[in-house]
């Protein structure tokens, strides 16, 4: 599974992209965030407060309880601020 991080999530994780192979117990985006937060202190700092995070699966916004299913690309980022 390809992961993308943007804005301060990217800065705190320390990279904008990585590939992971989560265990079967990781069913939805919230599970993935929890699992990722143990990868490094940077991940822990970026992902500590899921309420401040938003996500997209295969370039579509999803709520954090969305199942990962056959997701190829999951992005985690703060609420958007364009325009």
């Amino acid at each position, binding site marked *: 599974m390809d992961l993308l991080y*943007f804005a301060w999530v990217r800065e705190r994780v320390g990279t904008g992209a990585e590939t992971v192979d989560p265990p079967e117990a990781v069913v939805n985006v919230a599970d993935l965030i929890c699992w990722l937060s143990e990868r490094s202190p940077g991940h822990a700092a970026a992902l500590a407060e899921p309420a401040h995070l938003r996500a997209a699966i295969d370039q579509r916004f999803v709520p954090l309880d969305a199942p990962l299913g056959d997701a190829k690309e999951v992005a985690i980022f703060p609420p958007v601020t364009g325009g």
Partner: protein
Amino acid sequence: MINVSVQPAPIDLVSELAAVEIKGAGGIATFIGTVRGDDGVTGLTLEHYPGMTEGMLIALAEEAFARWELLGVTIVHRVGEMAPGDHIVFIGTAAAHRKEALESCAYLIDRLKTEAPFWKRETRGDAAMWVEAKANDLDASERWT
């Protein structure tokens, strides 16, 4: 006709406006968002999600076409480094009559602010800070749903 561009280059307002001046249009509405220089801001960096951003802007333009009788929609959003006064976004809508053009233009900027994956980082001298999403932007977007 839908034109969408996400670009590091400055927005060429003259040519973007000319492109949305479609034959038969009785009204053209435009919105231009600029980098504010208040509150000590000296620079703005726009990050985005390549691929998804363009897809969401096209989807928003298609939603506007489904909702109003339109002849053309242009959305140009700049990314990368900008300075106060620079243009961040240009939205142009063309319709037979002003009501459709004005309403769809307001719809597009309100929805873009909550539905397109862009992130702003402001700099004030040596200090940088990611801009937080505003609750009133969410309210403005949701009034159309």
